[in-house]
């Protein structure tokens, strides 16, 4: 049986997720045992007209990208959203609270009319159907390998439906709320092994909300520790601007 062909594509993004995949080092060579990488512009000059699995990094922020997204969808059997930008809009969506014209005037004051951009930066699911996601900013590369292996086997990769708090507790961290900080761990999808809280940070929500997040409970936590609910809304805004309204 021939190996499935995998192609990588990028839209509005920092390309850090693809870079993380190039960082797989030896596991990357093992992955090449089960799939053929036929397109990966960041790393290779070859291109391909056919592929089975399309892995897409980046948000959808320009009308001119729509045609390419649709072509990829028509060619690929499976479309994977790679990272927060493709999955939930990511940090790019932070601009969505400002008007398009204002943004252009602020950043390109002399020639705001030279550059093309949509009103909003959105997840790729706003343009095409997505079959699987690898969440995170950046993605956890072990999870990426897990998702690809399962897709090759024709299985649903399945992502954790429990919050980051679970992994954080298993790592025996002191709860950052006890340290007076605001953290999105109680409502955000696990699978990162609580990497931020385990390195002295807080959860900033890059993996998106868990299914049916208990937002009232999150509000209770904020009240218990005497923290301003606005801090949570600001935090949610960082990676999940579109979800922020729901939280309010």
């Amino acid at each position, binding site marked *: 049986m021939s190996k499935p062909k995998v192609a990588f594509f990028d839209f509005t993004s920092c*390309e*850090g997720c693809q*870079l993380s995949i190039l*960082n797989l080092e030896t596991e990357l060579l093992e992955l090449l045992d089960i799939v053929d990488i036929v397109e990966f*512009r960041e790393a*290779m000059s070859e291109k391909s007209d056919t592929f089975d699995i399309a892995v897409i990094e980046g948000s959808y922020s320009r009308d001119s990208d729509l045609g390419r997204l649709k072509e990829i969808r028509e060619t690929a059997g499976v479309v994977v959203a790679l990272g927060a930008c493709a999955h939930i809009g990511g940090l790019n969506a932070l601009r969505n609270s400002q008007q398009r014209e204002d943004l252009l005037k602020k*950043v390109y004051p002399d020639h705001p009319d030279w550059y093309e*951009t949509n009103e909003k930066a959105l997840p790729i699911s706003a343009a095409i159907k997505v079959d699987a996601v690898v969440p995170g900013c950046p993605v956890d590369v072990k999870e990426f390998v897990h998702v690809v292996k399962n897709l090759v086997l024709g299985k649903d990769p399945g992502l954790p439906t429990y919050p980051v708090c679970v992994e954080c507790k298993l790592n025996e961290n002191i709860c950052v709320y006890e340290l007076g900080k605001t953290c999105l761990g109680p409502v955000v999808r696990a699978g990162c092994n609580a990497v931020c809280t385990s390195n002295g940070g807080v959860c900033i929500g890059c993996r998106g909300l868990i299914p049916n997040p208990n937002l009232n409970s999150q509000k209770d936590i904020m009240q218990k520790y005497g923290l301003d609910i606005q801090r949570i809304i600001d935090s949610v805004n960082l990676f999940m601007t579109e979800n922020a309204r729901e939280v309010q």
Partner: protein
Amino acid sequence: MSETITIGVNHITRVEGHGNIKVDVQNGEVKECKLEIVEAPRFFEAMLEGRHYSEAAIITSRICGICSVGHQLASVRATEDAFGIELTKQNHQLKTLLDMGQYFESHVLHVYFLAVPDFVGAPSVFPLVATHKDVVLSALKLKKLGHDIGEMIGGRLVHPISMIPGGFTHMPTVKKLEEILNRIQDAKEELKNGVKLVSSLTLPDFERETEYISMYRDGEYAFIDGNIFSSDRGEISYKDYRKVTNEYLVPHSTAKRAKFSRHSYMVGALARFNNNYKYLSDDAKQAAEDLGLKPKYYNPYMNTVAQLVELIHIVDNSTEIINDMLAKGIKNEKPVIPELKECAGVGAVEVPRGILFHEYTYDKNGFITKANCIIPTAQNLQNIEDDMNDMVPDSIKKRTKEELTLDLEMLVRAYDPCISCSCHLLDVEFVNE
């Protein structure tokens, strides 16, 4: 090649981000020769407005995955500059090590994975797994070391976690520092093989003298601290970076451009090498000699070679830092909490692709009212285009269209451009086809 040609490379490969090369020559006269930046605009400066000082580095890190450490360093340095936070020696050392981890990762990726395939006639690194397995494995090992240095200091190398304004939230352990130190020693042997490999390759013979701009600090090969240095004008305060960068827009690029004393200037490994050669380690100077690189060197294709020389220097410099940290012991320094006030600050750091500037203005509650980020690749774009314009008229007489296309793609790649950053590049298009 005929006197009338058009070249069009859309979405240049093996670079970070989206760019195109366009060349149009009519009857031997160059009508158009430009580098288009077609990356989507991202509006980071606008997104930073109204955000808290603790979020600035988290946000700007996402300008670029490859340069995320660099953006965090410039961001944190700008915030520290604004609030008047002085670096302790250990904080300085940890920041420098984190920067060096990024150099390791980024330079190895560029030299071995993105540039070398051109010289051995391969379209990417993947076919080299079959033909040059030892080189690929060596490169993977070196890259992993950069990655692991970053992870030791920052929690991870892509969008690090533990560096915040005022210090670090997590300290490396003695055991980890010792392990990394051993691997750095092994890396030096691997890099010596890299020097042999690269010295056997033939680079295009092209020279154009330009203005070279880098950081400068008396007594060291500057990474995270210092002033600006121009090969034309000498030292300039980092606070006066706007006098150097003079950003402007061109219609064919979502990235801004820069100019100082001339029509364009160059930043990056070759600029640092030319300006700071005297502070390289002895072994790095020896490697430069083995590779035929002497200051002042005017061939931009040699930027890749200068990166290899820098890797040797980084091995020596990081060894020195880790030995010093191990001798003195790692102090559990808590990050300094800034006293909030209306203020502004500039962060200037040398990152793999050149000098990077961030500047923020804060209100009395610690929220950003104005932000500015000036990216190395944006500073290089006009210089690349000026190289192309200098090279093409002569080359079209000697080279086939295919050869010239490859020459131009290799030229752009030699600068190791980061287009995500610059728009926050690359295809060659020969127009008229």
